[in-house]
């Protein structure tokens, strides 16, 4: 029973941490319709920044903000490459992803892994660390990551209701409409990518504080993981109108982590983990297509019938 509970807590912890990233990818992939591959490198970017800043004694929450900011800048670069230099969306993402690999190594001063044990992190210091201090370590982590994830979700929900947020949704839905409003849809794409990559870097920052290590290779497979969370969440809960898409995405992330954990517990070797991640996403995409095809609102251009 204790093992089961431990596993559940573990799944929830990771689900919420990666949930923050999934919310970011929801903005780029679902709202903006932009397949952003730079996520694979902005995730470790957040980790590296956390490691360096926390080692230097910076407040851990401030490090989180810094990670978000740096991720946002990386997102802006992806956006500028696409919007201003007219490089395709996929390629802009790949360029930033590749370039950041070096940036991350430079940040860690050439090391591929940088541990920062026994430093102040958001889990053991500051207001929240103290308030939740009576709980066991695992629960404390869970409470703090869940709180952060939900806070990010609520902030984004509010943002999406502002004028700027509505325009962002319009930019992904119908760029011509944004032009008709006298605004540049490219600017909205850049803003969206900044938010998406900021959230991803924040997730990386929080994960590294939990493990107390930053690893430049920790971003491998993040695009697939985030996309799987987004698609699982939004397609499973499509019918539940009262659940916001951002909530659905967090649930998707937790379910996805649960699938992986179950597979591991059933004795699957760790080496197959990435393979399993790819397989899960494939299955989800196929199912999603099958079900979406039956939907009544599939958008067909009436001039092309």
């Amino acid at each position, binding site marked *: 029973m204790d093992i089961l509970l431990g596993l559940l807590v573990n799944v929830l912890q990771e689900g919420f941490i990666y949930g923050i990233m999934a919310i970011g990818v929801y903005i780029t992939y679902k709202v903006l319709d932009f397949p952003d591959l730079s996520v694979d490198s902005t995730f470790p970017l957040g980790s590296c920044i956390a490691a360096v800043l926390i080692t230097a004694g910076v407040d851990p929450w401030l490090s989180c903000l810094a990670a978000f900011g740096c991720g946002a800048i990386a997102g802006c670069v992806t956006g500028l490459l696409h919007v201003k230099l007219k490089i395709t969306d996929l390629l802009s993402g790949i360029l930033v992803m590749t370039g950041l690999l070096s940036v991350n190594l430079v940040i860690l001063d050439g090391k591929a892994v940088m541990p920062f044990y026994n430093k102040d992190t958001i889990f053991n210091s500051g207001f929240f660390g103290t308030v939740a201090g009576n709980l066991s370590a695992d629960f404390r982590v869970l409470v703090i990551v869940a709180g952060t994830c939900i806070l990010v979700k609520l902030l984004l929900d509010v943002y999406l209701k502002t*004028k*700027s947020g*509505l325009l962002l949704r319009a930019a992904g839905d119908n760029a011509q*409409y944004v032009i008709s409003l*006298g*605004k*540049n*849809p490219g600017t909205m794409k850049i803003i969206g990518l900044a938010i998406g990559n900021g959230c991803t870097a924040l997730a990386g920052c929080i994960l590294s504080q939990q493990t107390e290590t930053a690893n430049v290779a920790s971003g491998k497979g993040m695009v697939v993981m985030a996309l799987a969370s987004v698609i699982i969440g939004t397609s499973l809960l499509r019918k539940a109108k009262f659940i916001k898409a951002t909530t659905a995405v967090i649930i998707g992330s937790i379910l996805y982590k649960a699938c992986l954990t179950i597979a591991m517990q059933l004795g699957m070797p760790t080496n197959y983990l990435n393979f399993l991640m790819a397989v899960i996403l494939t299955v989800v995409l196929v199912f999603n297509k099958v079900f979406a095809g039956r939907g009544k609102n599939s*958008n067909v251009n*009436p001039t092309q019938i």
Partner: protein
Amino acid sequence: MSTQHKSDTMADYVAMRRICKTFNRDSLNEIRLFQNFNLEIPKGQFVAVIGSNGSGKTTILNILCGSVPIDSGSVSVNGKEISRLPEHQHSEFIGRVFQDPSKGTCPQLTILENMALADNKGTRFGLHFGINRKRIPYYRSQLELLKLGLEDKLNLPVSSLSGGQRQALALLISTMTPIDLLILDEHTAALDPRSSENVMELTQRIVGEKKLTVLMVTHNLKYAIRYGDRLIMMHRGGIVLDAAGEEKVALQTKDLTEKFNEISLEDGN
């Protein structure tokens, strides 16, 4: 808008002068569409443009909206030179309704969200709440004018509306804030006959109420004759027929078809 009083007497409220435009330059299918093309529209005129395929009527609209750059010449609307502005800046004073009903609205946003966005056109899109509850009665009253029952469906995504409903909404949205020029790009072509009648009626009403200057491209000769104060027929980048006032009233579908046939013979069809 602010400069409107100056232009009340101008006969060249919308002016395209000495426009040159060549497509696919220096290739086998080079098309020299416009060579010193001129078009002037006085304030408040409703102009219908017809013409064969490739006659340049859609290009006129695209040039006015800034989605196609010109090689040389000048384009001005209400005294402003606009030919060098990026496309989205044209939209600040030009409204456009497209042939494709899905282009004029955001399908995944609700009717209310679409209208709130349009209502804020010309302002900064900052971090204020997008939907102003106090404006909802105004949106409802505007939707009631469409007589489509949309005022009770404010929270429905636009994707669930029919093409005709969407086009009516697009028309309403593009004229919600003051504009200098309304461009109708075959906006009834993708609709069934009944919806297109409705949308044309609605167009007539909105244009009349708001006293808009309109440039409408259409394939429908009947509409071109029935609506508008001036009719222009285009062929190969030139104007072959330009009738306004009495002359336009006297025009019949038969006259236009004859003219069309003449043109087609020239083309060897």
